C-alpha cells in the first residue's frame, strides 16, 4: 500500500490534491482513498490531507503516520509543522519552493527530495498561487504511481462543472510540471 501525506494551508487546494490522486489512481484501476484532516477551518491555517493507493480494498481509516510520499505545497510550513514526521530514508518528498535543493533544510536524504517552483508555474498558467495541480504533475513524474493521462482525466472529472477554461489551464500546468 502506498501512503501519501499532503501538507499545505487552508485555501491552497490541499484536500483537492489528495482527492485528485485518489481519482487518478481509481482511473488506473487501483483501489484508492483520500480524506482531509483540517485543523481549524480557515484560510491560511496548516492542514493535512491523506491518500492511499492499493491493489486491494482499503479499510483502515487512521491518518497517514508513515508516509511513502510527502507533498509539501507551502515550504513556509517548515519550522511550523513537522512535515517529515514518520518519514524514513525511502520516503519521497516533493516540495514547492523557489529555493535551491541545497537550501531546503529537511531531515531526508537529498536523493529523495524533489523541489519544484510550483508557485511560478501556477502564477504563469493559472494566474493564481494555487499550486495543487502543478505539484501533482511532479508527483506523477517522480513516483509513477499514477499516469499523466489518468491525472488529466481526474482533473476533467473534478473541475468540469467549473468550466472548460479552468480544466484546460490546469491540464496545461500539470503537463508542464510533469515534463520538467
Amino acid at each position, binding site marked *: 500500500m502506498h501512503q501519501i501525506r499532503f501538507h499545505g494551508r487552508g485555501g491552497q487546494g490541499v484536500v483537492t490534491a489528495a482527492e485528485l490522486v*485518489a*481519482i487518478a489512481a481509481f482511473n488506473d484501476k487501483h483501489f*484508492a482513498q*483520500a*480524506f482531509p484532516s483540517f485543523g481549524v477551518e480557515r484560510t491560511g491555517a496548516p492542514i493535512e490531507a491523506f491518500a492511499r493507493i492499493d491493489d486491494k480494498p482499503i479499510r483502515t481509516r487512521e491518518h497517514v*503516520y508513515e508516509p511513502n510520499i510527502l507533498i509539501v505545497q507551502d515550504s513556509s510550513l517548515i519550522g511550523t509543522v513537522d512535515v517529515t514526521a514518520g518519514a524514513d530514508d525511502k520516503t519521497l518528498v516533493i516540495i514547492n519552493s523557489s529555493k535551491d535543493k541545497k537550501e531546503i533544510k529537511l531531515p531526508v536524504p537529498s536523493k529523495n527530495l524533489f523541489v519544484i517552483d510550483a508557485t511560478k508555474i501556477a502564477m504563469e498558467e493559472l494566474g493564481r498561487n494555487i499550486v495543487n495541480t502543478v505539484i501533482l504533475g511532479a508527483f506523477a513524474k517522480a513516483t509513477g504511481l499514477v499516469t499523466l493521462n489518468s491525472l488529466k482525466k481526474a482533473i476533467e472529472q473534478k473541475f468540469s462543472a467549473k468550466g472548460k477554461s479552468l480544466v484546460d489551464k490546469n491540464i496545461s500546468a500539470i503537463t508542464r510540471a510533469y515534463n520538467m
Partner: protein
Amino acid sequence: MKEILEGSQAIAQTINNIKPAVVSAYPITPQTHIVEDLAKLKADGKAKYEYVRAESEFAAASIVAGASATGVRVYTATSSQGLLLMTEVIFNIAGMRLPVVMTVANRGVSAPITIWNDHQDTMTVRDAGWIQLYAENHQEAIEQHLLAYKVAEKANLPAMVCIDGFVLTHTYEDVSVPSTAEVSKFLPTFKPKKGQYLDPQNPVSFGAFAPPAFYQEIREELHNDLRNSKRLILDEYEKLKETVPDIIKKTEKNAHINNGLIEYYGAAHPRTILIAMGSLVGTIKDTVDEINKGKMASSLGVLKIKTFRPFPANDILKMVISAKQVAILEKAVSLGATDGPLTLDVKAALKNKAKTKVQGFIVGLGGRDITKKLITRIVKEVERKGDQMMFIG
C-alpha cells in the same frame, strides 16, 4: 457501476434515486456536502423532490414531519447540535409513527466546540423510538439507506442512518450507487394505508392528546414494534442482497456472519472480541488480521453492531458467549454513568447468561484519531484484571 466518490456525494445521489417527494435540511458541518449536493441536483433539474430550505434544524425536522404526515416519502440530514435542536421533533416523529429517514453525519457535541466525529450526538437520541443504523464504509451507508426506507415504510417507524462525519462524509473511495431501476427492484413506491395520512377527504389527527389511561399503552406499542422490527431488518437485508447484490457491501473472506443487524469478522474461536460501530471497524479489521497472523494467532475477532436500535441483544450474546473477554470501543460517553451507552447495553444483554468479561473503552472523542496502535493496546489492556470503563488514546 463502481465509481470513486465522496461519501456525501454517493449518499446524495442514492437519495435522489430513492425519489423522496420532499427534502428539507439546514446545513451543518459535516453534513453540509450531502444537502448541498441534493440542492444542486434540484437546481440542475436532475431531481423531482421539493427542496425546502429551512431556517433551522428544528424547522427542517418539522417540515419533513409535516410532509411525511401527508403520506409522501421524505428525507433530511443533520449533525451534532443540529440533531440536538431537532430533538423535540425527533420524539414526535417516532410517536406519530412517521416513516421519516434521516442521515446523521456523526459529530461530537459542544462545549468545547468540535466539528469532528464521534457518536455523542446520535447516542443522545437513542431512546427516541427511531431505528438506528451505523455504517462502516460508503457502500454500507448506501445499502443502509435503502434498508432504512424499506423497513421504515413497512413498520411505520422512523430510521436514522448514522455515518461518521468527515471519516465517511468527506472521504473519497470506490462505491456503487444504485440506479433508479435498481432502487425500484427493492423499494416500491410509497403508498401509505388509508387513514394513516392527512387527507381532506378522510380527516384524521396525528399526535393527539393521550390521557394517562392511554399514553402508556401507546408507548409500549411503539417499543414492541421497534423491538420486533429486528426480524424485518434481517429479512429485508436478505432481500436486498438477492435483488441488488452489486450495491451491498461485500462480505469479506474472514467474515463469518454478516446480516442486517451485525457482522462478525476474524478468528472462528476467538479468545478476545472487540465490539464497535461505524467506520472504526475498518481499521479494527486490519488490526485483527495483523494480530491473528502474529504470536497471538487466531485469537481475535471484531463484532460490528450495524443496528443499534432495535438492540440485537441475543445476537450479540450468541457471538460472545464462548469468548474469554470483550472490549467495547465506544465513541460516546454517558456522562455520570458507569459505562458508555453501548457497553451498558452489552453488559445487560450478557448479565447472568455469560461469563465473558466485558470492558468499555472510550475512544476517539471529538475526532481523535483511532490508530491500529491504539487498538492493539486495547487488546492487551482487556487481558488485565477489572472491567472499569477507560478513556484511552
